[in-house]
């Protein structure tokens, strides 16, 4: 094994071009587990810790450019106002020790359907900035996940940052697990209201081969909110609408039975989380913040 320590982004791209099988390592919270357990013996480890730019973020007028290695702790501490959905999801990642090291770039690189950031990223409608010596491209999050633990990146590409629209409305995240900390999601749900475009976006984790959106549920809800004049009136959402939204979200799942939960339970739980998070975000939109912010 070789340990590559590029001092700059350009050096990292050159190293990745020369050794496309090199495994990028930033926080190490996924990669080191695989190495410790002998599940993986990469020929090259490409350490990205010396590239300071990856741990920085910029808040622009419309978007936040979030470096791939910005830790979940930093997201929680610094970007709660701009990226509330992702901040909530970050808070459910493992433990303080893991949140101090792990970041969104690792979740995207691993592309596990259980990654906690994915539902929030899908709901926000972000773009992933990837680059190789051949050039830079922005991959819409909807096109990023292509299979179980597979993403749309080429072997010579590295994730530099994620460009997320700043929240223009309430966002929520909910996750089911056997305990509060240190748990891989049985399933998870993220929702973002976008009052500016009068749309709603969602993200479902651990309930399909890849993280997915509940598009039918989104379209149904957007139409129902529009037709009923709910965005203007701020009236409560009728239970029938919330129920239909929940059923459609449940229907967007394509889960499996595994050690963490059954497919049937996951479908059920996603429906419940969809209904609840819709309630929380809509109440917030109407100006009634929940007294307890537990997800």
């Amino acid at each position, binding site marked *: 094994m070789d*340990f590559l320590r590029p001092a700059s982004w350009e050096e990292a791209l050159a190293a990745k071009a020369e050794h496309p099988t090199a495994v990028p390592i930033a926080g190490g*919270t996924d990669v080191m*587990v695989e190495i410790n357990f002998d599940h993986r013996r990469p020929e090259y480890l490409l350490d990205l810790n010396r590239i300071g730019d990856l741990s920085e973020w910029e808040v622009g007028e419309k978007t936040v450019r979030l470096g791939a290695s910005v830790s979940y702790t930093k997201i929680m501490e610094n970007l709660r106002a701009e990226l509330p959905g992702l901040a909530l999801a970050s808070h459910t990642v493992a433990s*303080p020790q893991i949140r101090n*090291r792990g970041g969104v770039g690792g979740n995207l690189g691993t592309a596990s359907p259980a990654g906690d950031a994915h539902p929030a990223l899908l709901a926000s409608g972000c773009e992933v900035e990837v680059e190789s010596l051949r050039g830079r491209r922005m991959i819409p999050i909807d096109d990023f996940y292509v299979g179980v633990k597979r993403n749309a990146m080429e072997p010579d590409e590295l994730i530099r940052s994620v460009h997320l629209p700043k929240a223009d409305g309430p966002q929520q995240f909910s996750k089911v697990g056997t305990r509060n900390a*240190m748990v891989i999601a049985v399933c998870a749900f993220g929702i973002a209201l976008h009052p500016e475009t009068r749309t709603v976006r969602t993200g479902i984790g651990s309930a399909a081969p890849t993280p997915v959106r509940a598009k039918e549920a989104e379209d149904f809800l957007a139409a129902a909110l529009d037709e009923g004049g709910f965005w203007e009136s701020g009236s409560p959402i009728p239970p029938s609408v919330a129920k239909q939204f929940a059923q459609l979200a449940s229907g967007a799942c394509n889960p499996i039975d595994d050690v963490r939960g059954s497919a049937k339970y996951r479908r059920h739980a996603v429906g419940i989380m969809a209904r609840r998070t819709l309630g929380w975000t809509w109440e917030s939109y109407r100006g009634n913040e929940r007294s307890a912010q537990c997800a």
Partner: protein
Amino acid sequence: MRVTFTVNGRQQEADDVWEGESLLYVLRERMGLPGSKNACEQGECGSCTVRLDGVPVCSCLVAAGQVEGHEVVTVEGLADYAKQRAEHGSCGSGACGTSIDAAKQWEARPADSQTGENTELSPIQQAFIDAGAVQCGFCTPGLLVAADELLERNASPSDADIREALSGNLCRCTGYEKILDAVRLAAARGEGQTAGQGA
């Protein structure tokens, strides 16, 4: 490969480090510092918690090569680290810290309630002993490092703060109650001291 980094305030070198090796392995097997415990090797248990540039991390999930030029504090250096922090805010001179030999031989010598001797423990370590927060002791080093960092950040943590800060550390003996007591005790003593100094 060779890795050079600061351990408990002193620069150290490790040679013949395998590229996939963890910081935990380097500390335990190459530097003779077995205080950080090796349990789950997947970041679930927190037994290997150390400070990396001040931040609590699972040393089993940090590749050795990633700490080149960085600063690590292990449980063996915690007493000195806490002492320096109390006296100077932090170590500015570079003369403080715990030598590798002292760290290797470090053992807990709590204050003797009769004579008051042997007070070479950090406040959190003393509180763990006084509260009876140690049973088998395997999780203790990780908990000490995590709890010490919490109190550094937040001198009067709520119970929720303590639970969250220690949520990455598993203990299979105590049921955690005595551990929570210990952190509360250390916090209360810290406040008492500050009040006594009129600060």
